[in-house]
């Protein structure tokens, strides 16, 4: 089946079997290998991507179901190649990763939380990453990284919160006509 997916602000086409998960499609057809394959049945969170800004399991969705949504992978977070987003940088600063396998999922879950709520409590952070398993860090430094990122985001003047999310909503119809990259992302 042919599918057209909006990934990181860009429309991409693939010819996939219905049984191919979004995760495998991202990794094999689009070479976006930042979404990691862990358990492949929805338990570990390593494959987390954002679907319309909300963290979801890429292994629990078939590519044929994913058209029409704005899909954001870890590759789509930084503003330009070679740069890091605030959340990514905060994970480096606070040693919020060791082996790195869970990190893309953790960062996307944290990013979605901070776009909604830039003053999260510790409980909010723990809840937001509760679907993501890390076997290295013991989670302490991950929570610290999210707190640090929240602090840095509060001190910037970048738009955040529900209003920013509204304006950030993709216009898939418009993209379909132009196939243009959006917001400086490549």
């Amino acid at each position, binding site marked *: *089946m042919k599918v057209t997916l909006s990934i990181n602000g860009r429309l991409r086409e693939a010819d996939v*079997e*219905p*049984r191919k*998960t979004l995760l*495998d499609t991202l990794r094999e057809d689009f070479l976006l290998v930042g979404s990691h394959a862990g*358990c*492949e*049945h*929805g338990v570990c*969170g390593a494959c*987390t991507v954002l*679907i319309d800004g*909300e*963290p*979801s*399991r890429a*292994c*629990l*969705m*078939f590519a*044929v*179901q994913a058209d029409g949504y704005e899909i954001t992978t870890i590759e789509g977070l930084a503003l330009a190649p070679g740069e890091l987003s605030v959340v990514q940088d905060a994970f480096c600063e606070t040693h919020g990763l060791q082996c790195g396998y869970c990190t893309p999922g953790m960062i996307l*879950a944290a990013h979605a939380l901070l776009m909604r709520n830039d003053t999260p409590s510790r409980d909010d952070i723990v*809840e*937001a990453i*509760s*679907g993501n398993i890390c076997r290295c860090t013991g989670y302490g430094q991950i929570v610290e990284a999210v707190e640090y990122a929240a602090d840095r985001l509060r001190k910037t003047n970048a738009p955040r919160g529900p209003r920013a999310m509204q304006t950030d909503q993709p216009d898939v119809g418009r993209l379909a006509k132009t196939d243009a990259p959006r917001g400086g992302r490549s």
Partner: protein
Amino acid sequence: MKPAPFDYVRPDSLAEACEVLAGDEDARIIAGGQTLIPMLAMRLARPSRLVDVLRLMELRGISLDGDAIVIGAVTRQVEVERSEIVQRWLPLLARALPWVGHPPTRNRGTVGGSIANADPSAEIPLVAVTLGAEIEIANASGRTGMPADEFFIGPMLSSVMPGDCVAAVRFPVWSHPHVGTGFHEVSARQSDFAFVAAAAQVAIDERGRCLDATLGLGGVGDRALRIDVTPLIGEQAGHVSISDIVRAATEDLEASSDLHATADYRRRVASVLGTRALEDAFADARSRSGCIQ
């Protein structure tokens, strides 16, 4: 961990979906897929065809209809969790939802999916049974309603027949002025399947007398069960022993035993959590009525 091949169709209407389902008994409905896709990946399910109903607008939405809140089957759990209508009119469902999976699965998982899946430890079926909700089922010959306690038959077993599609759930709204809720759960870890879950809702008058009370238990047996707590009705909450009533109502419960928990443990925890859920519900109702005891 890759599913076996299947066909994928996305009908444009519920009628069309029912037609496809009626013509192929190995076809299965997919909505959020948060339970079905793991089963496909482990090849515990091998449907010939998946009928995707997630985008059918006629199955979506939360509305107040007379004395009930009607939630369309493909309404995502996160939408219910954030719904002001649900928080205002269905406080028990609002209280139970954070216990359903974790945020990423609630972003995709649907209310109807959880109902149709009929997991004995699932929270949404438990709330449906506790409140006496009605499940609306659509098929090629039309729509019918069925009370939740008849709908759930056993573990992962419901009255949904091949060709049927859960269309909506009607949760009754309590119109009493002071309604309180309580919810407790024990599981191996956050968001895992409940060994025991207890949901309670009570209504009291200005003087703290109980006008209505309901208690449901999930995870104990092969489906969610409503427990008889009618002895509480008409009583002043502080004047009767909630724990005695709950213990008496739960001591003969048929409980399941597995490698996580024995039947005895489940019965014991059911009695304790049932009591706590009711106590929380009374405290919640009192704090809303401004009545201090």
